């Protein structure tokens, strides 16, 4: 059984031989390839009369991308969690008789933010400049994957926050204090979701 490399090679050879795309599609369907496989294989080559066939750009994977994006998203994750913790403990202190534990949590959270916030800011601005300078970097598969993982985590957090709010409402625990803490979670998770959803749209081909 032929693999996808052979399919790609066949499509290239057929285009070089001057076969039309409908003819190539017909031959491949007859051989048992699915429409999506054929579409993907033909889509790898630009629709232009130029010969030899011109390849479309493909996604790239590099160790450098992994390092930069894993660091950026790791810092974002840790920073966002601690931002929520600090803000929620501050809300608790407004409503409750605060304790030594609350002070310790703020102290640790602020320490994390002092390290992660400038690092995230620097990494993100640096990457934005690089992307503006060389749009080919938008084709980084690692960037895409990690961005979608960040979107998934942000969406899951928003859903969890909504579920917790409804549950608190039903159990009668929905106080002003709870509402303020739920709003903090939704603002942080929602902001991250919107930020990266917009970033992905900017990187998509027209």
């Amino acid at each position, binding site marked *: 059984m032929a693999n996808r490399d052979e399919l790609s090679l066949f499509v290239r050879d057929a285009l070089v031989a001057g076969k039309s795309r409908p003819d190539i599609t017909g031959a491949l369907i007859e051989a048992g390839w699915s429409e999506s496989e054929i579409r993907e294989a033909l889509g790898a080559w630009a629709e232009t009369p130029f010969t030899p066939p011109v390849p479309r750009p493909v996604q790239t994977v590099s160790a450098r991308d992994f390092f930069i994006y894993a660091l950026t998203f790791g810092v974002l994750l840790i920073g966002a969690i601690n931002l929520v913790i600090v803000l929620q403990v501050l809300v608790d202190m407004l409503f409750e008789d605060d*304790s*030594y534990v609350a002070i310790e949590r*703020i*102290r640790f959270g*602020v320490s994390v*933010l002092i390290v992660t916030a400038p690092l995230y800011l620097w990494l993100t601005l640096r990457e934005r400049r690089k992307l503006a300078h060389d749009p080919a970097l938008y084709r980084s598969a690692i960037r895409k994957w990690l961005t979608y993982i960040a979107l998934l985590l942000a969406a899951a957090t928003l859903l969890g926050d909504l579920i917790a709010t409804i549950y608190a409402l039903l159990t009668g625990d929905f106080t002003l204090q709870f509402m303020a803490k739920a709003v903090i979670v939704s603002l942080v998770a929602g*902001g991250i979701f*919107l*930020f990266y959803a*917009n970033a992905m749209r900017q990187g998509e081909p027209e």
Partner: protein
Amino acid sequence: MNRLLFIGFCLVVAFAIGVGLWVVGGPEYARMVDQDRQRVFDLDVLADQIACVGQPKRVLPDNLEELEPCFGRPDANRNDPVTNMPFRYTVLGPDAFELCAELAIDPKAARRTLPYKNDLILRSGNTVCLVRRKAVAD
């Protein structure tokens, strides 16, 4: 849109760091908070040794120098852990006594970080006290 979100996030983080630092205070304040906590912990351990639950025939000592070990309890620190001055001990009656310590931070402000804060009695200045009753034999 993203620029606004980014600026908004920076402002929220700056707010969290600023307010957080303002609430917890600086390193010197943190050291004083820990010293005051240690003072109150020491007061409590010392009060337990003086009250010595389980030995109702034991009488309250007249002063801390005369305090004898209490079986099953650690020997308490009788002096302030920082200044090394003895804690203030006052016998209030045959079965009641008071132990006091001088805190570094105004106790009204420090109450949020102190242990046993509901048992502490605020005196003038930075002084806090623990009052205990001792079970006595009939």
